[in-house]
Structure formats: structure tokens, C-alpha cells
């Protein structure tokens, strides 16, 4: 009996190591050093390791210069990293991937295209069947509340509406992961609240994995399953806070005690991550 167990152990171990499942996003020991033109080296990211499961909503918060955008660009496959490894669906990330969607702080719509044409852009680039793409674009635009604005040009719409169109565009090619870089940072507070609720609804409806960068601690908590706090440059992960608020979330949860506690936890880790003298 004993010998059998011993004999079996290495086999199991080897199997476990070989088929060990990667999460959707797996970042291990990521480091990024920029070489400036003057030959100076700037360490933007010292060491980041994180796992994001499929279907999860993760917020990334951190002060300016915490390398949030750097991290996002690396995840987009647009920026090479210095060392460590970034895996997406288990594969090493070697460049941009078509199963990732991006929403920037500004809508970044093409002004010469109508809303519908803008949403169709990724489908055109990727070469998705026109009929399929059109149907999908229309249903996405309906989902974000723009079905009456298909043929409007971006300049004819408000900032909030433009950002909805940008979200629809990011989803049209059905990516598994949606990256959002402070998507509501340029909107007024009221529109921002509305957009937060909309985003949660879209997330629930589409089942996408979302990684959202934000400056706002309440926003990060309100939306996410998990808040990852990045420390100031060279950045590391200062905290990884599980958000155990029930879903579906509603705006009145912001005034609950639990929300307040989570807010305090995230804020505290943010303050700790700031170097001495820069506290406010």
C-alpha cells in the first residue's frame, strides 16, 4: 500500500505541473523598464503578479504614475515588457490579440464614421462576415441605448453617448477580455454613475472578463469583484482586495457600512503605497 502511494506520487505531481490550468490572464513577475532617449532607465513596473479568472471584474487603482496604463498597454500586446511573463488563455502574449477589446478614457471614435460604422470598425479590420457583424453591432448599440443614433456622427452626440458607442465597438468582435482605461474619467459625475450601472448590466449580459483602470476608489469598489491597488512607480501590487458586496449592485450600496469599510481598506493601502512626504 505504502509503496503504491509512493510510486503514484511523482506521476500525479508531474501531471499536475504539466496540465496546471492557467487563468484567463496570468501575469507573473512582470517588470518594465523604459529606456529614455537620454539613455536613462526608468523603472515603471518593478514586480507585478496577478491572476484574472474568466468572467471576473477586476479594478486596478493607483495614483498617477503607478504604471496602470503601462500595464494595460502590455496586456494589449502593444508594449514589450522587460522580464517576467504575461499569459493570456495560457499562451505567452507576444503581440496584440483580436480576442481583447479596449475602451480608452476618451471615446477615440473616428469622426468620419457614423456610430454604426465606428462600431463595425473592428469587424472590418478582422474580416468578420458583414451580415453577422452588422447584426451584432446593431444589437450591441441597442444594448448600450444607442439604437436610435446609428447614423449619427460622433460630433453630434454627447460625451457619454460617444463612450457608449466606444464600449459597443470594443465588444463587436466578441473579445473574451475587455480592457478599460479610465473609461468614465472624462464624464461628469451624474453620467458617470449611470455609465457604471450600464457597465455592470453589460458585463452581466455578455459575461466578459473586465479589467478596469480607474482613479476613483468608490468606482473601483462599486464595479468589481476584486480591486487591485498598484503602488507608485516603480509599481508593485500594494493590495488585492476581495469585494464581497452582493450582486446585483445598486447605487444605495455606496452608503452601506461594508462599502465604507472596503473604501477604507483600499484607501489605506493606497496611502501606504505612496512614498513618505507625498501623502495628502
Amino acid at each position: 500500500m505504502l509503496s503504491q502511494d509512493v510510486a503514484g506520487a511523482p506521476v500525479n505531481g508531474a501531471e499536475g505541473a504539466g496540465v496546471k490550468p492557467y487563468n484567463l490572464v496570468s501575469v507573473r513577475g512582470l517588470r518594465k523598464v523604459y529606456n529614455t532617449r537620454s539613455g536613462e532607465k526608468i523603472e515603471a513596473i518593478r514586480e507585478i503578479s496577478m491572476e484574472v479568472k474568466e468572467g471576473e471584474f477586476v479594478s486596478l487603482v493607483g495614483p498617477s504614475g503607478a504604471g496602470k496604463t503601462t500595464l494595460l498597454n502590455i496586456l494589449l500586446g502593444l508594449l514589450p515588457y522587460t522580464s517576467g511573463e504575461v499569459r493570456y488563455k495560457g499562451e505567452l502574449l507576444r503581440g496584440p490579440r483580436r480576442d481583447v477589446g479596449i475602451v480608452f478614457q476618451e471615446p477615440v471614435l473616428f469622426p468620419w464614421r457614423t456610430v454604426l460604422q465606428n462600431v463595425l470598425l473592428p469587424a472590418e479590420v478582422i474580416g468578420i462576415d458583414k451580415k453577422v457583424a452588422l447584426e451584432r453591432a446593431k444589437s450591441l448599440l441597442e444594448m448600450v441605448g444607442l439604437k436610435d443614433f446609428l447614423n449619427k456622427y460622433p460630433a453630434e452626440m454627447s460625451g457619454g453617448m460617444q463612450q457608449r458607442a466606444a464600449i459597443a465597438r470594443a465588444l463587436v468582435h466578441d473579445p473574451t477580455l475587455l480592457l478599460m482605461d479610465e473609461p468614465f474619467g472624462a464624464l461628469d459625475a451624474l453620467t458617470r454613475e449611470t455609465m457604471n450601472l450600464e457597465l455592470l448590466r453589460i458585463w452581466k449580459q455578455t459575461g466578459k472578463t473586465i479589467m478596469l483602470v480607474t482613479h476613483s476608489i468608490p468606482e473601483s469598489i462599486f464595479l468589481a469583484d476584486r480591486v487591485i491597488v498598484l503602488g507608485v512607480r516603480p509599481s508593485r501590487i500594494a493590495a488585492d482586495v476581495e469585494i464581497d458586496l452582493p450582486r446585483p449592485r445598486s447605487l444605495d450600496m455606496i452608503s452601506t457600512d461594508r462599502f465604507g469599510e472596503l473604501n477604507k481598506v483600499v484607501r489605506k493601502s493606497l496611502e501606504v503605497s505612496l512614498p513618505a512626504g507625498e501623502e495628502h
Partner: protein
Amino acid sequence: MVSSSQPLVVLEVGEDDAPKIKFSERIPDWVLLSATFLVLLGLWQLAINIFNPPPYIIPSPTALGLALWSAATDYNLYVNVGVTAEEVAIAFVVAAVLACSMGLLVTENRVCERIILPYVIAIQSVPKVAIAPLIIIWFGFGITSKIVIASMLAFFPIFVNVVTGFKAIDQRQLMLMRSLCASRWQIFFKLRLMTAFPYLFAGLQIAAVLASLGAIVGEFVGAKQGIGSMIIRSQTEMDVANVFVGVVALSIMVSILHASVKAVSKKVVFWTEFEDKSEA
């Protein structure tokens, strides 16, 4: 929540910005402009009646009107206008094609940029009008020499604008395209070309005027036909009224050319109109 965001948009339009326009603001532009024109004509006629200058110095508006009428009914004017128009049109097209292709070459290829750009800048500093006599010696008294001079003048504004336009690409729009693994061609046609178009058309509008200027200067220096040679001939004959006829004919021609370029530009780069409006 979707519905709650809609009234926000409606409010932006506002309801009470229609009234409160002063009477003077409501007079159409064309009424003001033609009234001013008539007043100036009247003053001119009055000055002629009072000071009575010889007609070879300055004709009265009535004499000019008669000269215009007799010229308008003389097919000779149309031959001259036709020649100049032909020179300008060919020069405009030649300049546009050359400037666009060289602009493209310079922005697409670093080596071409380093070879071509310094020369173009150096040549630009030469006053093209000053070498018009040389061009006449090389290309003769026919329309070829005028086309050369006119296209030299028209080339630079188009070239400079095309180069600026191809470099004016929005970094986030480019990031979006790259994140979708867009090919070089897709980025070119869906983004860079569209970004360059407004610049191109701004250059074309300037070029239309400069091409006309170039053609006239060429005709001044030496030509058998054209509005320029008509003006010079009238000058040597002390026929000032006919000089004015040439100037008026030229102005009308340039205005039509400029207006048509502008009209085409409005159609092609319609989205720049939105931007102007939103800034106002």
C-alpha cells in the same frame, strides 16, 4: 437608467437661445455686402466727377461697365480666359498629384524623407516668381511654361499640408487599430488617409489661388494668349478700362475655382464642419 440619461441630452439643446437677436444681426450678409459695394461704386463715380482724372489713369465706373459689357460680348475674352483656365487647371492637377505622391513617399519612407525634405525646403525659399523668366526661356511662350510656373507655386502648400496630414495621426486611434492587429494597409486606408484628407483640402484651397497667380505671372513675362497677356497688352495701349476687365475676369475665375475646391472639400471632409461647429 437608460431613460434617465436621455433628458440630459435634450437639455443641452436649450430652448431659449432663439430670441434676443438684434435687428442688425438679422440682415442677411449678401444685403450688407451688396449695399457696401453700391456705396463704394457711388463714391468712385462721385470722385471721378469731382476730380475728373484722364481716363487712361482711372476709368469711371460707367466707363468700366461699358468696357466690361463690350468685353463680355467679345469672344476674344473667352479665348483668353479659356487659355488661363486651362493652364491653371492642368497646373493644379499636376501640382496635386506630385505633391500627394511626394508627400506620401516622404512620410512612408525615412530615407526618402531625409533625401527629399531638405531639398524641398531649400527650393521653397526661392521666390518662384523670380525665376519665371527662366522658365519662359526653357519652356517657350506657350502654355507649358505657365503650367510649370503655376504648378511650382501650387505644389508647396499641398505638399506641406499632405506631409503634416500624414503625420497628424491620433496616437490612440492608431493604438486601437494596432490592438486589432490591423495591417499596414488597413491602418493607411482606414486611418492615415482619412486623417490627412482635411489637411490636403486646406492645401488645395490655397493651391487653387496660387496656381492662378503663377499662371498670370507667367503670362505677364511672356505669352501669346491668356488673361495675363491681355492685361499687359491693354496696359501698353493705355487702355486702363480693359486692364480692369482682365482683373475682373481673373477674379471671377479664381473665385469659381476656389469655391469649387471648397465645395468638393465640404463634401469629402464633411466631418471637419462638425468640429468647427462644436468649437463655436
